[in-house]
C-alpha cells in the first residue's frame, strides 16, 4: 500500500502550518488595528493547515494512487556536493572545495566516466579561479593552509 501524492503533500503542508503556529506562539498577536509581529504568520499558518487538509482529504475521492518513484540517488549526491563545498570553502579555499564538489556532483549522473570527470574538474577549477578570483576579484583564496 502506498500513499497518494496529495496525501503526502497535504500532510507536509499541515506539518509546516502547525510548526509555524507553534513556533510563532511567542510573538505577540496584537489587535486587528495594531497588528503585532505574530498576527500575519498566525493567519498564514492556520490557512496552510486548512489548505493542507483540503488537499489531503480530496485525494480519497480520486483514483490516482500511483507509486511515486523518488530519485534519491541523484538528490543525495547533488546535496552532498553542495554541503561539502560549504564545509571546505572557508577552511581550505576555493580550489580544494571545487576539486571535491565537482566529482561528487558528477557522481549523480547516469554514467560516471573517470577521465572526463577529472578533465572537467581541472578545467572548471581553472575557470572558476580565473573568473571569480582574478577577473571579478571576489575576496577568496585559491588555497588556505
Amino acid at each position, binding site marked *: 500500500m502506498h500513499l497518494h501524492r496529495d496525501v503526502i*503533500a497535504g500532510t507536509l503542508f499541515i506539518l509546516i502550518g502547525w510548526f509555524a503556529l507553534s513556533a510563532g506562539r511567542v510573538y505577540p498577536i496584537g489587535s486587528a488595528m495594531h*497588528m503585532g509581529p505574530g498576527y500575519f504568520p498566525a493567519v498564514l499558518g492556520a490557512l496552510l493547515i486548512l489548505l493542507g487538509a483540503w488537499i489531503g482529504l480530496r485525494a480519497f475521492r480520486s483514483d490516482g494512487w500511483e507509486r511515486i518513484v523518488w530519485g534519491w540517488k*541523484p538528490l543525495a549526491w*547533488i546535496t552532498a*556536493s553542495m554541503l561539502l563545498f560549504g564545509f571546505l570553502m572557508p577552511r581550505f579555499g576555493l580550489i580544494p572545495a571545487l576539486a571535491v564538489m*565537482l566529482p561528487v*556532483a558528477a557522481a549523480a549522473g547516469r*554514467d560516471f566516466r573517470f577521465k*572526463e570527470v577529472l578533465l572537467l574538474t581541472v578545467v572548471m577549477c581553472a575557470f572558476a579561479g580565473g573568473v571569480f578570483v582574478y577577473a571579478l576579484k571576489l575576496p577568496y583564496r585559491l588555497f588556505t593552509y
Partner: protein
Amino acid sequence: MDVYDSLALGFNVAFSLQNLAYCFAGVALGTLIGVLPGIGPLTTIGLLFPITFYLPPLPSLIMLAGIYYGAQYGGAITSILVNLPGETASAVTCLDGYPMTRQGRAGAALATAALASFFAGCVGTLLIALAGPPLGEWALAFGPAEYFSLMLMGLVGSAVLTQGDAAKGLAMVVLGLLIGVVGTDVNSGSVRYAFDVPELTDGIGFTVLAVGLFAVAEIVMNLENREPQGAFTGKLSQLMPTARDLKASFWPALRGTGIGAFFGILPGTGPALSSFAAYMIEKKLARDPARFGNGAIEGVAAPEAANNAAAQTSFIPTLTLGIPGTAVMTLMLAAMIMQGVTPGPQVMTEKPELFWGIVASMWIGNLMLLVLNLPLVGVWVRLLSVPYRWLFPAVVMFCCIGNYAVNNNPVDVYLCAFAGVLGYVLVKLECEPAPLLLGYVLGPLMEEYLRRAMLLSRGDPAVFFTRPISLVFMLATLLVLVLMVKGFRRSG
C-alpha cells in the same frame, strides 16, 4: 512627458556603451542557455543575481531582461533543429518546426521564428511604452488597501492559473508568504522564526531560495529522467525564407503577437500558455488543419510570436504596478528591490531613466537577437552537442559559488542545498514552485500594506470592500476562487 519624449530618453540611456554591452551580454547569454538543454532562464538569472550586486541598477536589470527574452529565442533553435524544447515556452514550436527540419527547410523555419519573434518583440515593447504611463498614473492613487487587494489578486491569480493544481498553488503561495516572514520584522524589530541562527535574522536570501527551488531541483529531475541530449546532424542551407513563407506567416505572427500580449499581462500564464493558445487558434483557423504537425510554417510563426510578445508584456504589471506575474518576473522584481528600487508606479515618475531605459533596451535587445541568431545559428547548433553530464556539475558549481558570494558565508550554501531538497520533493508531489517564490517576494510588502490599511481603518476589515478600486480587485479575486472551486466540483 509624452511617450515620444520618454522613449527618446530611454533610447538615450540605453544606447550608452555600458548599457549596450550589458544588453548584448544578456541576450547572448540568454540565447546560449536557451540552446543548452536542461538549463533555463530561471536558473541563469538566479545564478547571476549575486554578480548584479556589483552593478548599478539599470545595467543589471537590462542584462537580466536580456537573458529572459534571449532564452525564448534560443529555445526556438533547439525546438526546430533537434525537437528538444530548451524552454517550456517553445515546446509547441517543436510540433511543426522539427518536421520542417526533416524536410530540409530548417533555415526557413529558423528565420521565420526569428523574424516573427522580432516583430512580436517590437510590438510588445511599444505596448509597454503605451500602456505603462496610464497604468502607472492610475496606480499612483493607490493606498495601502488597494495595494493589499492587488497583491492578493496577483497571488491568487498566479496560484490558480499556473499549470497544475489550484489548491496546491494556493498552499504554495501561503508557504512562500511564511518563508518571507523569516527574519527581522520591520515594524516591531522582533526577530521571527530565526531559532537563534544569526544568519536567519536577515531572512532567507532570495538567491538561496530561487537557486535551490529551481536550479538544484531541476538538475535532479533531469538526472532522474532521461538526460536531455540532442545533436543536429543535418545541414543548414538557405537561411532566408521564400516570399511564400513570409506571406503565409504574416497573419499568424500578427495573431500570435496579440494572443501573447494578452496572456503576458495576466498573472501566472506567461509565454508557455500563450504559445500553446496561439498554435491552437492557428490550427482552428487554417483551411487545411491536417498540415499542422507536418511542417506548417504558420505553426512556427504564431507560437514564436506569441511567446516573445508575452515575454515582453509580462513586464507591464511588473514595472508599473510592482506585481510580477511569473517566476522570472519575480526574479526581476527581487533584483529591483535588492538594488534599492522600490517597485511600483512611482518608478516611472521618480526614475524615468530606469523605466524607459529598460523598455528601450528591450527593443535594442530584440534587434541584437535578430542579428545574432540569423548568421550565428551555426555556432549555436554546435553547442547542442555538449553532453549534459558535463553541464550539470558546472551548474552545481555556479550554484555553490553564487550562494557563497552573497554574504561570503557557507550557511547560504547549506540553506540552498536544503531548498533544493524541498524543491525536489515539492515538484515530485506536483506542487509548482513558482507561486511559492511569488509569495516569498511579495510577502513582506503585503504584510506591511495589510498593517497600514488596518491601522488607517482602525481595525475595520471593511476598508478592502468600501474603497472602489480595492473592491474591484477583491471581487476579481473572489471570482477566480469561485471558478476554481466550481472546477473541482466538475472534475472531482
